[in-house]
C-alpha cells in the first residue's frame, strides 16, 4: 500500500513533527505567552529604582612571604586576608556604622533601636568591602618579594551624592584603621622582639661558656692537637719496638753470659810454686768427704779432725749452694719478665698466666728456703778472674735489663694514655660540633631578631614606605553620574530571552498535551495506508 501512496498536495511536503511545525501550529499560544511575559517583566524592570554606586580601589602590599620547598618566595595570603577581614569587621561594626549614619544625617539620636538596627542592616547590605576579583589578585611578586592584594570599597544608594560621600568615608576609615593597626602591630612587634632578644642572648652566653669549658677539659682531644697526639703515638710505638729489641738483645746476652759462666769454674786453679796445678774446691770437697769417712771410722764425732773436716766440708758445700741460688734468681727474674709482658695481653685466668704465676711462687719459695738454709758465705770467694768477669757482666746485664724494663713500662703506660686519647677523638669532636652548632644557632637567632628589631625601629622612626604592610589608594571614589543598577538593557535582553523561552515552553507543553489529529504524521502513526490532505477553504 505504501508504494501506492501518491498523496495529495500536502503529502508531498516532507514536513515532520519538528519544532517548526509545532511552532506553526501553536504560534498563537507562543505569541500570547511571550508577550505576557514581556509585558509583566517590562513593568517590573522599568519600575525598579535607579541605584548609584560609588567605589574606590586600594592596593595592599605586604612582605608576608615564606619560602616554599623549591625556595620560591610564596604566600598563601592567609595572614593578610585575616587582617583585612578584621579591619572590615571593625568598619562594618554597629558603632562605626552608627557614627557614619549620624555624620551623614541618615539618622539622629532620637531614632529607636529597632529603626537603627534596620538602618545598619541596610547600610551593610549597600556596602561592599572585599578583595578584587574574588580573594587575592596577583598573590606572588617574586621579583620584588612582595604580596599585592587589591581591595575595593563600594557603596550603593539611590542618591549619587550619598553614595559618593559614604564611599569616601569608608575609604578614609579603612586607610586610617589599617595604618593605625599596622603601627600598633609594629610597636608590639618591637616589644616582643626585645624580650626575645634578651632570652636568646642569655642562651648565646650559656652556649659560649659551655663550649669554653669543654675545650679546656678536652684540650688534648681537640681537633687542633690531634696530629701531635698521632705523632706521639707513632713515636711511642717506635720507641717501644726499640725497647723490645733491646730487651731481646739483653736476654740473649744474659743467656750467653750464663752459658759462659756455666763453663767457667768459680775458683781459679791453684798452682804451686813449682807451677803444678793444686786441687780445686770441688775436688777438695770430695777429698775431704773421703777423708771424713776414713776419719769417722777411726775417731769419734767429737774428734778435732772430724770437726775440722766437717767444718771444711760445710764451707765447701756453701759455695755450691750459693751457685744454685743465683740460678734460681735468674729463672725467677725471667718468669717475672714473662709475666709482665703477658699481663697486657692476657688476664690472670689465662692458662699461661696461671702456669707462670705458679712457677713464680714455687721459685720464690725455693729461694726463700735456700736463703734460710744458706750458711754464711764462705770466706773463700771465687777467685777465677774469668768467672768473676762473667759474673760482673751478668750483673751489668741485670741492671740494664731492669732499666729497660722500667722504661718499657713507662712507654706502655704512655701509649695506653695516647691510645685512649685517640679513641675518644670522635666523641669529643662530636660533642664539640654540637656545642658549636648550638652556639651558632643561638647566635644566628639573635642576629635575626636584632635585624628585625632594627628594621622595626627604623620603620617606627621613618616613613610608611618601609612598613611591612602598606596601603595605597589606587582609585578614589567619585560622584556617580549614571546609575549602575539596574542594568535595564541587560535585563530587557534577558527578559526577551525569558519570554521566548517561556513561549517556546508553552508551545512544547501544548504540543505534548495535544491529543488531536493535527497533521499527517499523527495518522501515519496509526497506519501505513496513504494519507490525503485536503486543504482548508474559506
Amino acid at each position, binding site marked *: *500500500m505504501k508504494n*501506492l*501512496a*501518491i*498523496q*495529495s*498536495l*500536502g*503529502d*508531498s*511536503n516532507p*514536513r515532520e513533527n519538528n519544532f517548526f511545525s509545532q511552532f*506553526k*501550529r501553536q504560534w498563537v499560544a507562543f505569541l500570547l505567552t511571550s508577550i505576557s511575559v514581556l509585558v509583566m517583566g517590562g513593568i517590573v524592570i522599568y519600575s525598579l529604582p535607579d541605584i548609584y554606586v560609588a567605589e574606590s580601589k586600594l592596593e595592599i602590599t605586604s612582605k608576608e612571604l615564606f619560602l616554599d620547598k623549591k625556595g620560591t618566595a610564596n604566600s598563601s595570603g592567609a595572614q593578610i586576608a585575616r587582617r583585612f577581614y578584621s579591619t572590615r569587621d571593625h568598619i562594618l561594626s554597629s558603632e562605626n556604622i552608627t557614627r557614619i549614619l549620624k555624620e551623614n544625617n541618615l539618622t539622629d539620636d532620637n531614632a529607636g533601636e529597632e529603626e537603627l538596627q534596620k538602618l545598619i542592616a541596610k547600610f551593610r547590605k549597600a556596602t561592599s568591602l572585599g578583595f578584587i576579583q574574588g580573594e587575592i589578585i596577583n598573590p606572588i611578586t617574586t621579583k620584588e618579594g612582595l604580596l599585592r592584594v587589591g581591595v575595593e570599597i563600594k557603596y550603593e544608594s539611590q542618591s549619587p551624592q550619598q553614595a559618593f560621600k559614604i564611599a569616601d568615608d569608608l575609604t578614609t576609615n579603612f586607610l586610617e584603621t589599617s595604618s593605625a593597626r599596622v603601627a600598633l602591630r609594629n610597636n608590639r612587634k618591637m616589644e616582643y622582639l626585645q624580650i626575645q632578644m634578651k632570652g636568646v642572648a642569655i642562651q648565646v652566653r650559656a652556649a659560649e661558656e659551655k663550649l669554653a669549658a669543654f675545650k679546656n677539659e678536652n684540650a688534648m682531644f681537640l681537633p687542633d692537637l690531634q696530629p701531635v697526639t698521632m705523632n706521639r703515638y707513632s713515636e711511642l710505638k717506635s720507641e717501644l719496638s726499640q725497647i723490645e729489641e733491646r730487651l731481646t738483645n739483653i736476654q740473649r746476652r744474659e743467656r750467653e753470659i750464663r752459658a759462659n759462666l756455666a763453663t767457667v769454674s768459680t775458683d781459679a786453679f791453684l798452682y804451686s810454686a813449682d807451677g803444678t796445678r793444686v786441687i780445686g774446691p770441688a775436688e777438695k770437697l770430695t777429698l775431704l768427704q773421703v777423708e771424713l769417712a776414713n776419719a769417722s771410722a777411726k775417731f769419734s764425732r767429737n774428734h778435732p779432725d772430724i770437726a775440722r773436716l766437717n767444718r771444711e766440708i760445710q764451707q765447701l758445700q756453701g759455695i755450691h749452694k750459693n751457685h744454685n741460688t743465683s740460678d734460681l734468681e735468674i729463672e725467677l727474674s725471667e718468669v717475672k719478665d714473662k709475666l709482665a709482658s703477658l699481663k697486657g695481653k692476657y688476664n690472670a685466668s689465662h692458662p699461661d698466666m696461671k702456669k707462670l704465676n705458679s712457677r713464680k711462687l714455687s721459685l720464690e719459695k725455693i729461694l726463700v728456703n735456700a736463703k734460710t738454709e744458706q750458711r754464711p758465705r764462705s770466706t773463700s770467694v771465687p777467685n777465677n778472674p774469668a768467672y768473676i768477669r762473667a759474673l760482673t757482666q751478668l750483673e751489668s746485664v741485670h741492671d740494664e735489663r731492669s732499666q729497660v724494663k722500667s722504661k718499657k713500662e713507662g712507654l706502655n703506660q704512655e701509649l695506653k694514655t695516647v691510645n685512649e686519647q685517640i679513641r675518644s677523638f670522635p666523641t669529643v669532636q662530636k660533642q664539640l660540633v654540637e656545642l658549636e652548632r648550638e652556639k651558632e644557632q643561638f647566635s644566628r637567632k639573635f642576629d635575626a631578631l636584632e635585624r628585625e628589631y632594627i628594621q622595626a625601629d627604623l620603620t617606627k622612626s621613618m616613613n610608611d614606605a618601609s612598613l611591612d604592610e602598606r596601603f595605597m589608594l589606587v582609585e578614589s571614589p567619585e560622584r556617580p553620574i549614571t546609575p549602575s543598577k539596574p542594568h535595564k538593557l541587560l535585563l530587557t535582553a534577558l527578559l526577551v530571552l525569558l519570554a521566548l523561552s517561556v513561549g517556546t515552553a508553552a508551545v512544547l507543553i501544548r504540543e505534548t498535551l495535544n*491529543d*488531536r*489529529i*493535527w*497533521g*499527517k504524521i*499523527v*495518522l501515519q502513526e*496509526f*497506519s501505513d*495506508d*496513504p*494519507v*490525503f*490532505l*485536503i*486543504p*482548508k*477553504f*474559506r
Partner: protein
Amino acid sequence: MSSDKKNLTRSSIEDAMVKAKKTTGTELVPQSTDATQVSSAKIRYLDKNIVLSKTTRIPLNKEALKQKHIFLDTEDKNTAIAISAYRHLRTNILKTLNAFGGQTLLVTGPTASVGKTTTAINLAINIARHSQRTALLVDLDLRKPDLHKVFDFEPEFGVIDIIKGKTPLEDVLVSPQIERLTLLPGKEAYEDSSELLSTGAMSNLLQDLKSRYPERLVIIDSPPVLGGDHVEALSASVDACLIVVDKTNRKHELKETLRRVHDIKIAGYVLNRSLEAKFDRYYY
C-alpha cells in the same frame, strides 16, 4: 424540477415506448396510467424485457455547490488547489480499488461534521468527470441525509423507500447533470437507521447496485463510525473504505474507528481542512 416535468411529456414517453417496441419488439407499459405520475416519474421495467429507463434530472447550481466546497471548474488558485487535491485522491483511490477489483467505497469518519459528504461528492464528481468510470453516489447517512441538500433538490423518494420496498431503485436515482454521475439520495432522517442498514434488503440493494453496472463505482456517504453501528452493518457489503478526519478529531477517536472498521479494507485517509496542504509549496 418543474422544467424536467415539462420535458417529460406524455408524448415523449409514448415516443420512447414506440421506439422501444420497434427496436426490441417489446411493448412498454407505463407503471402508472396517471399522466401526471408518468410525467414526473420514469419509464421503468415492467417485465424482464424492458430496457429503457430514465432518471430524474436536476439542475446544476455551480455557485451553490462552490459555496458548499464542491468544486467543478477551476476558477482561481483556491479552486485549482482543491480540484488538484481531489484529483490526487481520485487517482489513488481508483488505483487502490482497481488493484483488487473493488467497486464500492464507503466514505466515513469517526465523528460528524468532518467533511464526509463533501469528500464523497468531490470524489464522485472527479471520478465521473475525469475518468472513464461512472459513479453512483449513495447517501446512506440515514439519520442525517445531506446529499440532496448539497445539490439543492428535494427528492421524491429516498434510499429508505427502496429498502422498504416502497419504490424501485430507478425512481430514486437522480442525475445532477454531471456526466457519468448518478445520485441515490436519502430523503428524510430515519432514527432507526442502523437496523435498517443491517437488513438483507440493504445488502441486496448494494449487491444490485454493484452487479447491474460493473463499470460503475459506488461511493457511499455513510454515517460517522462512532455515531452508531451503521458502518459495522455495512462492512460486509462494501469493498473498501475511505476514512475522513479533521483536526477536531482526537487520537482515541481514530483508534476506536479503526477498531470498528477492522474488517474493511482501508483505501486511505483524508485529513480534511489541513493547514499543511493549504501552504503547500509544490503547487504551481
